């Protein structure tokens, strides 16, 4: 049993193996992700009923919540990968962090941007320096820091581990984001979705939202696979299989 897990682990750590698996999964991730996201967005934009108080401006929720959700969970995934990098020195984990950090930064930016645009008609301001907004801004800075450090350290191994340390240090921000709305009396409303309770939202609103979140998740999976493939190709440039692959034109 233990032997088997070990073998699986080794296999999982092999970039070549991952490249193949990713190639197989990517069309599915892209197709299902796009369908779900589009369905969620179209439903949310055109078919979901208007909200009783906010009218139509609440339709921003269908992109705001998925972006914010992904922005945080990407960071958590990066942190898990950082632990794997530091403890088991698995190459793929580092490749994941490298591939995914820019995606996380873009999604954090989107969450902040859509939040600002949504805030104007509902709260009456583009931006307030309240705990949730500030901690999201810090998350964006953390992503920038990770990206900058990644490119600053030339040596492959120390870059991987240095970035992992930085990612782990930044994890303290995640619980602050999560609980900021409960600890402080912020303008930002508490979470609509909770694991333990029924969503405090009408079903014809939360079902499309769920679609959008799942769709964006799958799309992120596609992006992560694609970008990890790029990193693998860069790093394994000199190996036999990459040369064969390049000769065959990338398939």
């Amino acid at each position, binding site marked *: 049993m233990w032997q088997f897990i070990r073998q699986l682990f080794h296999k999982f750590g092999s970039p070549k193996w991952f490249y193949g698996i990713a190639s197989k999964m990517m069309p599915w991730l892209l197709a299902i992700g796009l369908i779900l996201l589009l369905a969620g967005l179209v439903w949310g934009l055109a078919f979901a009923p*208007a909200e009783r108080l906010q009218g139509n401006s609440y339709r921003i929720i269908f992109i705001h919540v998925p972006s914010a959700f992904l922005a945080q969970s990407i960071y958590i995934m990066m942190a898990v990968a950082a632990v794997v990098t530091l403890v088991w020195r698995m190459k793929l984990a580092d490749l994941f962090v490298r591939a995914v950090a820019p995606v996380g930064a873009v999604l954090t930016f989107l969450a902040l941007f859509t939040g600002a645009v949504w805030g104007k*008609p509902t*709260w*009456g*301001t583009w931006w307030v320096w309240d*705990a949730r907004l500030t901690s999201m801004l810090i998350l964006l800075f953390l992503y920038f820091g990770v990206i900058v450090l990644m490119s600053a350290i030339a040596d492959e191994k120390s870059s991987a581990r240095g970035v992992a340390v930085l990612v782990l240090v930044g994890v303290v921000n995640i619980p602050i984001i999560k609980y900021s709305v409960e600890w402080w009396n912020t303008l930002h409303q508490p979470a609509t979705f909770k694991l333990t309770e029924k969503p405090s939202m009408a079903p014809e609103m939360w079902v499309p939202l769920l679609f959008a979140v799942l769709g964006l998740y799958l799309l992120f999976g596609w992006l992560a696979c694609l970008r990890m493939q790029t990193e693998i190709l860069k790093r394994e440039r000199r190996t036999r299989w990459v040369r064969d692959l390049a000769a065959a034109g990338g398939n």
Partner: protein
Amino acid sequence: MHPIRKKRLTIILFLLAGLAIAVGLTTYALRQNINLFYDPTQIASGEAPLDARIRAGGMVKQGSVVRSDQDLTVEFEVTDFVSSVTVRYTGILPDLFDEGQGVVAMGRLHPDGVFVADQVLAKHDENYMPPEVSDALEKAEASGARAPAMNQ
């Protein structure tokens, strides 16, 4: 005990002690009012400092909004269903501002008990529902139907 194990144990104990103290201090801190937010009851009982920029929040009392016909000055009462405080504000109110809705106002409490706000923000709760549903709910409560606020 093996020396290396003993060393590890010391480190772990050191970590745990640090974390425990930090958690304890944080929970103490969170029980204090550290973001200068006061509800109407606190303001009425004189807990809020005068002439300092504070935040106040609560529900806008039904039928309390008085608009000036000369300029954009609005006066309304903010209540937490125990006490209420009068808020005066000059400026454009957010779309979501309405009687019976939550607001957060930033400004200063004057000695006469009026809260003069320089910013009024509407607070939305985590409940989203379509107008028909809320209408049905309100009818069920038989508390006077309100016009659906579709196009505000």
